């Protein structure tokens, strides 16, 4: 009887979760969506406490108190700039929970002789996906936080050894299905999956992290699905599937925005060969960059009717979101129209730049997606590029020999004029020379983004 009530509670929770994702799709209603999801979570958790297998509560209380104590600071005090590593860490948490449940349930089944092939297949899959997500996410968080080198780390026979490990994992899975109580194989699979997690993230560079974080999101979701199959629990299957779908959609969106295939991100180790290729065509551009003083730049911004600001990762690095918002406010006060053009990979995770600018107080209707803003550059007087490079490089459209050829870009070069703020006349993250900076309508404003923005704002005020 209680079981039916629990199942019905899960049904209600599933309704809330799905509806929450639907409502999350619009900025006006998104917050209500999250409240709905939280309600669904509460219903599911409370119902579970009546589960027939639960006979003691003291360890549950310990876990819940400890978890809440860990979760509260992770929710309230982590700065928005650290969001990518924060999300990666919580992928690791979720996957660790799934992995431990898989191990615990296997141990339980083993000691009570309740192991059949289907059950063990799901548990093994759960541990496999969970294990690689745990170490993969920790590696990703380490790279994003700067504890580990951001550069891709490669060694000989890397792809071959990864494939061999993957082969061992699959063989182990098959073995477990045939001989469900072969526990040493279960342990081997756990170790192999932990190793795979480390090895797949090792060769991935800092700029490719958005894809990796999204992909790990999908794996964490699939681990939850496997848990659901192992425990005959539909709510786990449903939420895991939603989580997995979101991870897959975001990974595809990110790969597209970076002009890379999944396979290329996972097995490519971008930096090494692409930079060598890039050195060739770079010299062909010729011409000189023309520098501009901040006075002149400020005057042009002050008298422009339509301004589009292109924030890049450089903006986030120098923590200059607030300064850029101040500048935008000043231009608007003088009657100009300011929009922000957001490339999908402007930050270190999907949509990161939007959050950083929203935090600085920029209204979200000024944050325009790439596809929409690209139609408007032709009627824009001044584009201010701040620390963005590859995402505005016209070579992606025009130069088939460029390593970033085919990548969707912000078509900044269609605007009347461009002011590009840059630390110095060096190359971008992928080491590709940018023709835009040599264009006759582009003026370069060299220097630290934050300092330059403060100066620009001061001069726009006086203009």
């Amino acid at each position: 009887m209680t079981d039916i009530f629990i199942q019905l509670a899960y049904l209600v929770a599933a309704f809330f979760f799905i509806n929450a994702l639907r409502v999350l799709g619009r900025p006006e209603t998104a917050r209500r969506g999250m409240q709905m999801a939280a309600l669904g979570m509460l219903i599911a958790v409370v119902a579970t406490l009546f589960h027939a297998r639960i006979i003691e509560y003291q360890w549950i209380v310990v876990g819940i108190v400890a978890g809440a104590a860990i979760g509260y600071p992770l929710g309230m005090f982590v700065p928005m700039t650290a969001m990518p590593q924060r999300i990666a860490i919580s992928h690791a948490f979720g996957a660790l929970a799934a992995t431990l449940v898989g191990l615990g349930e296997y141990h339980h089944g083993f000691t009570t002789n309740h192991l059949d092939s289907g059950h063990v297949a799901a548990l093994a899959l759960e541990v496999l996906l969970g294990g690689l997500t745990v170490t993969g996410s920790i590696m990703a968080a380490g790279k994003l936080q700067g504890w580990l080198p951001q550069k891709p780390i490669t060694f000989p026979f890397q792809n071959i050894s990864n494939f061999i490990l993957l082969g061992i994992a699959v063989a182990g899975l098959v073995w477990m299905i045939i001989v469900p109580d072969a526990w040493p194989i279960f342990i081997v699979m756990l170790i192999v999956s932990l190793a795979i997690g480390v090895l797949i993230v090792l060769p991935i560079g800092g700029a490719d992290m958005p894809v990796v974080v999204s992909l790990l999101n999908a794996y964490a979701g699939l681990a939850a699905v496997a848990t659901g199959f192992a425990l005959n629990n539909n709510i786990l299957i449903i939420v895991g599937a939603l989580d997995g779908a979101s991870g897959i959609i975001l990974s595809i969106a990110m790969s597209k925005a970076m002009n890379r295939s999944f396979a290329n991100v996972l097995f490519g180790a971008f930096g090494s060969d692409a930079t060598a290729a890039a050195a060739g065509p770079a010299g062909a551009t010729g011409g000189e960059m023309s520098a501009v003083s901040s006075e002149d730049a400020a005057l042009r911004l002050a008298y422009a009717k339509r301004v589009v600001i292109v924030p890049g990762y450089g903006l986030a690095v120098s923590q200059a979101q607030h300064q850029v918002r101040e500048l935008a406010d000043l231009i608007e006060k003088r009657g100009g129209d300011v929009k922000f053009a957001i490339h999908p990979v402007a930050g270190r995770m999907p949509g990161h730049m939007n959050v950083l600018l929203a935090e600085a107080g920029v209204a979200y209707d000024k944050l325009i997606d790439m596809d929409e803003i690209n139609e408007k550059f032709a009627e824009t007087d001044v584009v201010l590029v701040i620390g963005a490079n590859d995402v505005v490089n016209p070579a992606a459209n025009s130069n088939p020999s460029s390593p970033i050829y085919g990548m969707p870009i912000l078509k900044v070069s269609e605007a009347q004029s461009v002011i590009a703020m840059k630390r110095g006349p060096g190359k971008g993250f992928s080491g590709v020379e940018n023709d835009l900076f040599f264009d006759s309508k582009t003026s370069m404003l060299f220097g630290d983004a934050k300092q330059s923005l403060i100066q620009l704002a001061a001069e726009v005020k006086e203009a």
Partner: protein
Amino acid sequence: MPETTIIQLFVFLLASFVGLMTIHRVPPLLHTPLMAATNAMSGISLVASLVLAGANHGWLGTIFGTIAVAMAMANVVGGFLITDRMLAMFKSDNKKADKAAK
């Protein structure tokens, strides 16, 4: 293959489609909150962890279960808080525009 597994496969298939359809409509503007939100929701593995922590299957199961409860709970608490914090920052310009019009 037992019948329940077949039904679960149907549930998985349908839920995946619902997920793909709904999430496809979330604009890039909200992709970071979306990821934080699905992260919080993935704390649903709490449901499985609770059972393991409370089932008294011996010390190994209890330790694993308790750690799993803590990890999942951290995602639930931290995930919902940070998503809400983030979404609260997304403000529309309309109010300002209204004032200016007057």
